[in-house]
């Protein structure tokens, strides 16, 4: 057992660190939320990495992967978090991409993987429905075969950044008579197809991140179905497993804790930095310890994965603990900024136009806290993750 990096791994770290330093655009460095960015700005880092050939280190080499070891990938993620680079959108790279190269046919791989890699295609996820959240398999969006097309009717919700999407990977019901999980198919839908309407949902922090997507007699070529008809649940579950493994967010949380500490160093209580007070120092220490534990837990999962044991149900630990930590960091940031926590940073059309009171580090602390409540709801709510562990790991 050994947790330290080898000299080769240290050299790799230096290489990627200097690559990031030399190539990450300075004008993006000061902006951390997507709400402040245009579509092109969100994709800037993706395009730079694509050119370098580093956009999908977690893919097999034959599809564009880097061939890095699990440890190298870990280092890469750490270094990106350390430099606070823009997080790459997961919908193509981590969600539908692996589904396509695992379960798609050659034609589909040729057609869709290049656009995912280059970011010429923006993907969104058509999973949840108003009546199918935690119970995803109860989804009702219907696809009926009509010649060489499916005709799709239904209503998807919580579709992240669908306002920019070119494509949606979508779970549809193709056999309404079958048991819930057995009549589902996995379709790739061109968002320009007639009959698709995207309607924004504004969340309580004022952001427009999620949407409703209405599908009305949307004609989807049969060749856009992944794998077999009525076997879509298998691919959906594979994708959800990947979603969970990326969700721990350890490296980003480390950086967020650093930021929290710098806030608590600037904020004064009776003339003394807040971080020097027992009660706040103790809370930050607890958070760091929780994160250390999660980091090693994630490394253990990765190590198992590198021996061919793909992310199993224990990935739910990473989702639960990872999101609890992310939420706790934002909660403590609100505590740290004190009175200025109540200042609202304008969003949407108003963004950037108005006076924002308080030190820069306090801006958006509360909205960030509100926004992060989503993390224990999305990707399979934390209650569902508990169910998964109870059933699949503990055998209850």
């Amino acid at each position, binding site marked *: 057992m050994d947790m330290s990096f080898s000299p080769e791994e240290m050299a790799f770290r230096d290489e990627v660190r200097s690559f990031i330093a030399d190539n990450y655009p300075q004008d993006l460095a000061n902006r951390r939320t997507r709400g402040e960015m245009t579509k092109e700005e969100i994709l800037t880092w993706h395009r730079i990495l694509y050119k370098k050939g580093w956009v999908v280190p977690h893919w097999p080499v034959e599809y564009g992967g880097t061939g890095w070891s699990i440890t190298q990938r870990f280092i890469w993620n750490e270094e990106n978090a350390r430099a606070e680079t823009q997080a790459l959108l997961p919908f193509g790279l981590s969600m539908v991409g692996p589904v396509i190269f695992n379960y798609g046919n050659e034609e589909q791989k040729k057609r869709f993987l290049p656009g995912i890699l280059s970011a010429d295609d923006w993907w969104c996820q058509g999973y*949840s429905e108003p*009546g*199918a*959240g*935690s*119970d995803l398999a*109860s989804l009702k969006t219907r696809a009926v075969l009509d010649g060489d097309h499916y005709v799709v009717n239904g209503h998807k*919700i*919580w579709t992240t950044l669908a306002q920019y999407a070119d494509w949606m990977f979508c779970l549809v019901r193709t056999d309404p008579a079958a048991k819930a999980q057995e009549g589902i198919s996995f379709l790739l839908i061109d968002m320009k197809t007639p009959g698709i309407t995207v309607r924004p*949902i*504004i*969340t*309580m*922090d*004022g952001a427009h991140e*999620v949407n409703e997507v209405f599908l009305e007699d949307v004609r989807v070529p049969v060749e856009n179905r992944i794998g077999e008809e009525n076997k879509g649940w298998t691919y959906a579950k594979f994708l959800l497993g990947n979603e969970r493994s990326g969700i721990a967010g350890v490296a980003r949380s480390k950086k967020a804790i650093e930021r929290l500490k710098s806030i608590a160093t600037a*904020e*004064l*209580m*009776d*003339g003394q930095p*807040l971080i020097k007070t027992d*009660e*706040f120092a103790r809370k930050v220490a607890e958070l760091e310890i929780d994160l250390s534990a999660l980091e090693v837990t994630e490394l253990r999962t990765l190590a198992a994965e590198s021996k061919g044991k793909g992310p199993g149900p224990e990935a739910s630990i990473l989702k639960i603990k990872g999101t609890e930590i992310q939420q706790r960091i934002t*909660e403590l940031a*609100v*505590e740290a900024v*004190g*009175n*200025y*926590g*109540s*200042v*609202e940073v*304008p969003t949407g059309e108003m963004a950037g136009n*108005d*006076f*924002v*009171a*308080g*030190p820069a580090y306090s801006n958006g602390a*509360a*909205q960030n*806290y*509100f926004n992060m*409540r*989503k993390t*224990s*709801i*999305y990707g399979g*709510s*934390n*209650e569902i993750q*508990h169910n998964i562990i109870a059933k699949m790991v503990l055998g209850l």
Partner: protein
Amino acid sequence: MDFSFTEEQTLLRNSVQALLNDKYDFDTRRKIVKSADGMSKPMWAQFAELGLLAAPFSEEQGGLGGGAIETMILMEEFGRHLVVEPFVETVVIAGGFLREGATKAQQDAHIPGIVDGSAIWAFAYAEPQGRYNLADLVTTAKKDGAGYTINGYKAVVLGAPWAQKLIVTARTSGGQRDRDGISVFIVDKNAAGVSTRDYPTVDGRRASEITFENVKVGADALIGAEGKGLALVEKITDQAIAALSAEAVGCMGELNKATVEYCKTRKQFGVPIGKFQVLQHRMVDMFMAYEQSVSMTYMVNLKLEEAEAERVKAAAGAKVQIGKAGRYVGQQAVQLHGGMGMTDELNVGHYFKRLTMIDTQFGNVDHQLKRYSTAA
């Protein structure tokens, strides 16, 4: 021992409930928050007409002779409807300073404007370096002939964009965090040298950053004795804490009701999600947090006139309970509503945001724990 309300108190609750049910539904509130003004002047006039703004003042001051319990009743109902109008700032805080610290002449000059709804007040006390310490002041008021000259900066002054009058704390002597040397002034917001920058808050209100640059006030602007203002400031902020506790109780009550209702109707896996034991226990914990908060709210409102140490423990204790319970109930209400709980459209997130901000007003859980543990 009797925790029941008098007939008059029940009537008061009924009348404010009737008004808010009729005229302050969630859609109306959303329009008010999004309006250029950010508050409803007609609603404020109706509050005045119903006598709500007169509730805690004595009859000789033109009031209804009510006390903390009447304020508590109003605040709970305001909490249920997420009322944004500056009742706490104007009636509880400015009214409190005038009732408890002002001369007869000052009361005669200012209370009628509060009662009839023509004057809105804000409380400019917090400073960027001071966090929640009411005595940590660098704003100064220097004796200048018969009056004073005020210089300094006040942060996050809630309700100030709507206010004509400000209650301002300033240092007339002593060092930055001395308990002695603090004085309380009435300042016209449009006085020469007062400049404001207004902005919205995350809970649908408005606030200002206020700079005071050589602002001249007369001797009649001073409330209470020069340099001895802190005790009064603490007493009035404890009254504000008692009022905010009641508001939080109103918010939590609505969240719990909405959450239980949602879990009874929302079906997943073929059953209402409220059938899942893990969620049942969660809602029981939310219910207990609410009941404990009701208890602390009654307690602090009954103890506002006790000796200082007793009052401070009651106020700090209530604020700790409200802070913890508000966070738990707010977070879990969002969680149990799932994605819907995250939306701007549903009221759940708005209650959660308000509860979050109530925790930071006048000192969060940590601050009040410390205050409680050091109260002599």
